[in-house]
């Protein structure tokens, strides 16, 4: 009961304190919302692109041409034991030959085609390694795979990951600085009051609590604002982005879209955590008992 009253009191102090900050509250929330919106947008974009890249990559396959005299089924079984392999498709030489004859009408020649295995992987990063491994199998004559495409896909993925990390780091730092400065200003404006409270024997956490909550409120407000912006942008940009992607990627997977909900949750948590954390750090630094 007593704890509840103290909690309510801390909440009230927070509201009173924020009321004193006036328009600067909205300035801080605005700046944070911009940062969080950029972060959310980049997150959304990188995650979507990553899905696209992954889907695209999963359509890549390694073709392994087998020497005559080996059982393609046995080799396929052996290859499918590899952990990175998701699917092995056997194209027997007869089938391949029949297909070819139906389109080219070559006659009177013995079937020159090898048995072929189409190997699909569950990760694009291992295409080259796996290809080399397959090459070493005795029954395999040679392997073929789109090397350049595989390399480009991997490079794009790495780039997206790096960009995501850099943007997150930069914006989190910027957010921390904005929150820290704001709370520092509040502390400075209330310096005398804080000193009085400390001399009266008010617990330090009771003095810092409202400031931490103020930071958390900034983070909450800003993340809600950025959610609204992102939601709006999503409605308009979604179909456009999809069209653009379709124009150079004809085989677009259906569920390439990275849902908004995870982004929303991440933004909310990040906003509140950074807001509360930034102001907790600042109050710890500038408020001594």
């Amino acid at each position, binding site marked *: 009961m*007593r704890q509840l*009253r103290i909690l309510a*009191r801390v909440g009230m102090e927070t509201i009173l304190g924020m009321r004193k900050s006036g328009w600067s509250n909205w300035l801080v929330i605005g700046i944070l919302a911009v940062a969080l919106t950029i972060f959310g947008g980049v997150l959304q974009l990188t995650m979507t692109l990553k899905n696209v890249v992954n889907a695209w990559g999963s359509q890549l396959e390694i073709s392994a041409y087998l020497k005559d005299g080996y059982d393609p089924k046995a080799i396929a079984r052996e290859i499918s034991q590899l952990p990175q392999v998701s699917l092995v498709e056997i194209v027997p030489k007869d089938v391949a030959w029949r297909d070819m004859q139906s389109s080219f009408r070559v006659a009177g020649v013995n079937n020159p085609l090898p048995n072929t295995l189409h190997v699909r992987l569950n990760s694009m990063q291992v295409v080259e390694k796996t290809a080399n491994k397959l090459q070493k199998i005795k029954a395999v004559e040679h392997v073929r795979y789109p090397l350049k495409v595989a390399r480009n896909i991997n490079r794009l993925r790495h780039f997206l990951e790096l960009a995501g990390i850099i943007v997150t780091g930069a914006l989190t730092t910027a957010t921390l600085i904005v929150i820290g400065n704001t709370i520092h200003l509040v502390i400075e404006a209330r310096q005398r009051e804080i000193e*009085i*409270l*400390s*001399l009266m*024997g*008010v617990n330090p956490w009771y003095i810092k609590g409202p400031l931490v909550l103020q930071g958390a409120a900034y983070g909450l407000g800003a993340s809600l604002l950025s959610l609204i912006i992102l939601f709006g942008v999503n409605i308009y940009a979604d179909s456009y982005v999809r069209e653009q992607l379709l124009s150079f990627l004809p085989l677009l997977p259906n569920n390439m879209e990275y849902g908004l909900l995870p982004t929303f949750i991440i933004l909310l948590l990040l906003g509140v955590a950074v807001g509360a954390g930034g102001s907790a750090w600042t109050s710890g630094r500038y408020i001594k008992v």
Partner: protein
Amino acid sequence: MIRLQNVNKDYGGRPALVNTNLNIGLGEFAFLVGPSGAGKSTLMRLLYREEVPSSGKVFIGGVDITRIHARQVPLLRRRLGIVFQDYKLLPRQTVFDNVAYILRALGVDQSSINRRVTSALCVVNLEDKAKAYPDELSGGEQQRVGIARAIVNGPPVLLADEPTGNLDPQTSLEIVQLLERISSRGTTVLISTHDQFIVNSLRRRVISLRNGEIVSDVDSGTYEMEVKVATP
């Protein structure tokens, strides 16, 4: 209730208190006097742990407060009522809210707050100013708010560092008499001052400091400010 044991306090090598021993019992009332720079405020700050001594021990109610953890300092300060020369009231809060602040921070329920704040304001005779803001009050009235705030949590010890420093002689006397009345109800009261008029009017215990040393300590004493003679 208050005890100093071989206390020394230096500020960057310059001594502000030298080998100080002092004992003030439960419910006692004492003046701490001395010229400017004698070390009165320093001694007070040691008592509410705004400073720690360079050496020696400081006891409040039997506890050596030089050894308590920083986390326990707020608890110590709530057991002391502290009154300041500059009142240190929260300017944007009413008289009532100033006095009620610490009780609210401690989660005391509303009806107890009302009762205790009203009774504290009653002691200092300011019930009718509960809704006023500090800048609407005279210096003497502001100091009475400061005293009400100091006693609202029922502390066993009341410290006042030059509580009358900014007040005229008549008001000063009223304030000190108010503190004496509070002491008579069992609170240990220590007042620092260099106002000889009030010290001599009350004739209570007088502890004299000079250059950081206690030079006299008498039970019903007086205080004569010495006239400084310029040395060639």
